[in-house]
């Protein structure tokens, strides 16, 4: 999954294992989450009130399939409700389909990714959106290495190309992750990511808490705590918060999810 590119979907995944799935494996994850924002950073990076409390409640469904050792296919969708009192909207968010491959054929965590966003509602102008509301194509490179038995360091970077009027965006993320000791079922994940617009002249599409296609700049931190219930069932809860921004909502969110692997 792209690094924070689409926070709603990124938050919605609860993955237990490798970045690449083993051939034939199917991993399904579902999450329940809540994101909210009461402030936004303006173009001068000053915090101002959003005008309303913006909420986004979602239930995500995400499937990955190990098509072969070399390629993993994935897709997902959100059921969501978004609100900016007194207005609200609920329904299906965007559908995302992607393919992941290896940049190092011997490593599970050295990968590229290509992802298409297919909107279920072509709506880019409303301040209440359940998804991005436009077609998009994203590419990403991710790299993670275990540097200590209990610590992996990762980095990723990518671009998102959006159908107008959404702005193309660039994204990057650094992560620290691992287990709490040898053989521990508990795992942690600390991410620091951000995005910038790749077009200066794109129009801003409202102050929605969605990240996609805006010309705002953002730095976000995420903490995740996971627990391997069994070898194939994994539970995870996370909290993320926007740490710095320019022309963007100051959002934060919590979510919990379960994933199940079929080998």
């Amino acid at each position, binding site marked *: 999954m792209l690094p924070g590119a689409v926070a709603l979907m990124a938050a919605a995944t609860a993955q237990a294992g*490798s970045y690449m799935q083993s051939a034939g494996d199917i991993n399904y994850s579902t999450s329940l989450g809540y994101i909210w924002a009461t402030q936004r950073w303006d173009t001068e990076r000053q915090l101002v009130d959003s005008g309303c409390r913006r909420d986004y409640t979602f239930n995500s469904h995400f499937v990955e399939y190990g098509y072969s050792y070399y390629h993993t296919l994935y897709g997902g969708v959100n059921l969501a409700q978004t609100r900016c009192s007194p207005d609200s909207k609920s329904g299906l968010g965007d559908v995302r389909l992607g393919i992941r491959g290896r940049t190092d054929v011997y490593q599970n965590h050295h990968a590229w990714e290509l992802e298409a966003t297919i909107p279920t509602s072509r709506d880019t102008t409303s301040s209440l959106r359940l998804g991005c509301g436009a077609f998009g194509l994203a590419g990403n490179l991710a790299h993670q290495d275990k540097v200590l038995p209990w610590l992996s360091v990762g980095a990723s970077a990518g671009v998102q190309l959006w159908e107008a009027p959404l702005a193309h965006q660039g994204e990057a993320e650094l992560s620290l992750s691992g287990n709490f000791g040898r053989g521990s079922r508990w795992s942690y994940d600390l991410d620091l990511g951000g995005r910038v617009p790749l077009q200066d002249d794109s129009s801003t599409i409202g102050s929605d808490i969605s990240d996609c296609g805006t010309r705002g700049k953002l730095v976000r931190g995420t903490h995740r705590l996971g627990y391997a219930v069994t070898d194939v069932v994994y539970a995870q809860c996370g909290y993320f918060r926007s740490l710095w921004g320019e022309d963007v909502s100051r959002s934060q969110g919590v979510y919990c999810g379960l994933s199940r692997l079929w080998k």
Partner: protein
Amino acid sequence: MAAAARALGLWLALAAAGPVAAAVDVPVDTLALEMDPRDAEVVFRKDKNDTSTFPVTVRMADGRRLAGRIGTKGGFTQGFAKKPLLIKLDKGNRWFGQSRISLNAMSVDRSLMREWLAWDLIHALGMAAPVTRYTFVTINGRDTGLYFRIEWIGPDLFERHGFGREADMYDPVDKISCADLTPQSVEKPAACWVSILPGGDNFDSLKALVAAIDREPVETFPQFLDREFDAESVINWIVVTIVTANTTTYNDEYFLIRSHARRKWFVIPWAYDRSFGWAYEPSLPEPAASDNENFQYYYPLELGAANPLRDKVFMNPQLQQRLTRRIGELVGSAGPAAWHGWLNPARLQERITRVRAAIEPYLARDRFVDRAQFDEKLEALRHYAELRGRFLERIAVSPGDWVQDRAVGSLPDPGQATHLLDGWGYLMAAVKVQSRERPGGLEAAVQRGRPELVPPGAARGACVQRSWFLTAGSAAQAEVTVEYLQESRAHSELGAGVGDERQLQLYARDARGWWQLPTERNTLANTLRTPRLALPEGQTVRLVACEAPAAQALAAP
């Protein structure tokens, strides 16, 4: 008899089905695989947690091709360069009668013989056990490596051994090591066991068995064993564990199977890559925990984890006698049964020689074999083969005086060797006489702890923490081998100042002073050998082993 005939029939069928080379009784099959060249590299170098499989074709000698998929198998052994492999042939395809070809890489045991020997013993004992073969694997015509092929445990095997195809089958969960048949082990059975048959969360028959074992008094355990189990499989499971010193079996490495047709349980022990003296190092993570230099041949009969099934066998005098009798048959001379004399040192050494001859042509072709390591591991295995039977005979079959650290014998004839063991079965010295003035006695003793005397310039802490003493009744010259203990980091006689075990040097002190002896070392077996040692008549020669060169020791006389 019927089972034996069935087994023979199968063997003949297998022999007819594919190529067999090398010695008749140690066949080595060749498995020719074809696969995408990139896949062939990836399968050996991919992340060990990735369970992907790849298309593969088995090329038969007659030109037929069998399609299937190949992947890696096992746990920590995937951490080695030579990966254990599993091939699943497509429906309808069979190679040597099997649709699954399970290939152990023998990466931990670089003597490449422990598994062969263990399964040879199991087969000799007539246990229900998988067919096993050395199998040399080529991929796309390129030599890859020598593997140990082991039949997939399943209904075909059960039926062949007269247990019928219908069975319950439980396999301990690897990594956890809690499948010890205690009531606790079935409180949350899925944590300790995998229910292969009937499968899923059904552990009913296992729970009933555990409860029955727990209920049964020790006094009536022989009747219980005969009623509930194929009792021979339990006795032999324990015997094989004792002979091979396979410490992980009682709570981890075995299959527990209940035949519906015979309404009895039987056991198939498993995993012999770390056995025959190779000791686990609990202070290290895998694979270092298994791939270390610790060694022992002196684990007692009760080695391994506690297990009520095993424990009640030990506690019942009748069953213990049965165990001891079986061990006696193994360490004794050849007899009517195939297992008689299997552990006799001379016969076991001869068997190792035959296995070595059979696999020798393949060693140079195995791209993962390090010849120096093979030779060292093999020598350690031979040390175990020489001593395990003697040790068991001393402590279980014919206990002697239980005098510790001292052994008395006779100087052998020139060209002959003797192993002097104390009353507890530990080797004091192995002496191979080259010349002697006349027949006489020979005494060997060990003093444990920091050496009282060391050569000038040597630090006691840089020495093996024991001294050896040899006294001959007649002047003689002999090759002498002594050993020290290094069972684990915590239980080792290596002095704290010994930095490199491979630099240990034997020194002898006699009436004339200290002598530096030519020394051959096997740091796996923990043996030190000097090819020529002068033993003066009636005088005690003291031996010590230190790492640092002694400043004033004299060259060997």
